[in-house]
């Protein structure tokens, strides 16, 4: 070993003349931690001290050798911690750590077993570790709640049997088969395993196997920490209940069984249902079943009742009534509309009639008659005035004419002499001859005379 290390250094020295502290400590750390991963170390506790942060420091010593050790607070096993004291021989499990900062090597302890008793516990741990999959809770068979037949593997003379039977009486209708075995001493585990096997083979109608014994010294319970027990229980097709030893300590048998009870009494109570409990449960069921049915029936009654009320609300009678009202209303409106319509027409006709009456031609006729009368008067008047005009004019002309009459001189005594019958006015005497007839016009009347004598 020494030689080996020297050679290693030698190789490195070929490259380097010296090491830094860091390099050395790092190499040491690697060396230690790589070579010692996890290990058990046996020794005596010395210089035990508790740090404020909860860590426990001590030295593991053997004669002149000493190893600094730490139990970190976070990894401290609660059960063992109070029992640690200087001088106690222990078996520690953990790993070595080299701290480069201080250049010291520490044993980081994860588990502490007191030596002596501690070795058996270690054994238990080893078995658990070995058959770890068998302890999986998921592998465990369920225990029938109402078993009719159970087998009890125990000593015929132990207190456990008495305890168990005492509880099981008047509890449940169950058939208990007792398979007597030794529960301590060399080979007891073999008998127990055989019992399990026999029951599985020959009494397959057994529903639960209960392995039980009272508490005792660690040595007394030794058969229950055996590999045989693990394998035997594991092989059983019938679920196994274990009630072995103390309340606090779990035996291997406890751990491998499908169920663990602390005491035989507890096992009886657990495995065999109590009559009163079941009766109570049944009475609960009955209550519940009555309640549920009542709920179902009354719910339907309520629903039906509601439907009935709703249907009654929708009674077409109401519809009929409202329709009747509507029809009545429509009928009224129809008559009203018709009356309105006719009234409108009648009123219009009446208005037109009135207008028409005003346009009666009688009025026209009267106006025309009057006009005609007026015309007639005008006609009379105009003809009359025409006539009178003419008459007046004639009269005035007549007057004028008479005023211009050449005969007017006659009034003054003149006369006009005319030849007769020629009627030629005689202006000179010589125009006539004697014996000629002459007409003499006087102012009044005329004379017819014969010329007697002509004088020039």
């Amino acid at each position: 070993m020494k030689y080996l290390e020297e050679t290693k250094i030698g190789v490195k020295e070929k490259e380097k003349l010296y090491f830094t502290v860091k390099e050395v400590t790092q190499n040491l750390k690697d060396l230690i931690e790589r070579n010692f991963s996890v290990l058990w170390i046996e020794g005596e506790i010395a210089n035990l001290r508790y740090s404020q942060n909860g860590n426990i420091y001590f030295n593991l010593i053997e004669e002149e050798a000493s190893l600094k050790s730490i139990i970190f607070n976070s990894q401290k096993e609660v059960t063992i911690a109070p029992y640690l004291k200087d001088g106690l021989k222990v078996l520690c499990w953990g790993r070595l750590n080299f701290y480069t900062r201080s250049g010291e090597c520490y044993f980081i302890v994860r588990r502490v077993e007191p030596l002596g008793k501690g070795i058996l516990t270690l054994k238990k741990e080893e078995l658990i570790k070995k058959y770890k999959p068998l302890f999986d809770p998921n592998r465990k068979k369920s225990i029938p709640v109402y078993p009719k037949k159970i087998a009890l593997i125990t000593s015929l003379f132990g207190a456990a049997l008495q305890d168990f039977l005492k509880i099981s009486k008047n509890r449940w209708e169950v058939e208990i088969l007792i398979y007597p075995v030794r529960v301590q001493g060399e080979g007891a585990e073999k008998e127990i395993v055989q019992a399990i096997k026999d029951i599985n083979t020959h009494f397959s109608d057994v529903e639960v196997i209960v392995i039980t014994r009272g508490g005792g010294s660690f040595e007394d319970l030794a058969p229950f920490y055996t590999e045989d027990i693990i394998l035997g229980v594991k092989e059983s097709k019938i679920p196994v209940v274990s009630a072995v030893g103390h309340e606090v300590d779990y035996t291997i048998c406890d751990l491998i069984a499908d169920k663990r009870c602390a005491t035989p009494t507890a096992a009886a109570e657990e495995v065999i249902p109590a009559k009163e409990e079941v009766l109570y449960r049944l009475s609960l069921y009955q209550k519940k079943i009555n309640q549920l049915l009542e709920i179902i029936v009354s719910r339907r009654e309520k629903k039906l009742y509601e439907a009935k009320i709703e249907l009654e609300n929708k009674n077409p009678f109401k519809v009929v009534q409202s329709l009747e009202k509507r029809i009545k209303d429509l009928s009224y409106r129809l008559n009203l509309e018709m009356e309105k319509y006719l009234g409108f027409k009648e009123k219009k006709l009446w208005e037109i009639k009135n207008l028409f009456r005003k346009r009666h031609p009688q009025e026209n006729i009267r106006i025309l008659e009057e006009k005609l009368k007026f015309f007639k008067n005008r006609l009379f008047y105009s003809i009359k005035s025409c006539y009178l005009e003419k008459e007046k004019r004639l009269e005035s002309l007549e007057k004028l004419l008479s005023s211009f009459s050449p005969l007017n001189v006659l009034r003054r005594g003149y006369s006009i002499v005319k030849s007769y019958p020629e009627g030629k006015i005689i202006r000179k005497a010589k125009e006539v001859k004697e014996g000629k007839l002459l007409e003499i016009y006087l102012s009044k009347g005329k004379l017819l005379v014969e010329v007697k004598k002509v004088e020039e």
Partner: protein
Amino acid sequence: MVKNNFFSFEEALKRIEEILKQLENKELDLEEAINLYEEGLKLIHFCEEKLKNARTRIEVILKDKEGFKLENLDKAYELFKNGSR
């Protein structure tokens, strides 16, 4: 009086007025004056006759009207037809 249809009342009147105008002329021959005067007289008489006739006719028309018959409307119509032209 035969020839009074040849000239109307108004023409007669006009003639009378003419005669009057001639008569106003002092130079007028007595004979002619007398002739004119006589003509005038005759015309006046003619007119008087006319007037008399007119009066009678108007009266007759009125009287007719009283006894107007529907048949007369034919005549009225014709009158109207001619008159309205």
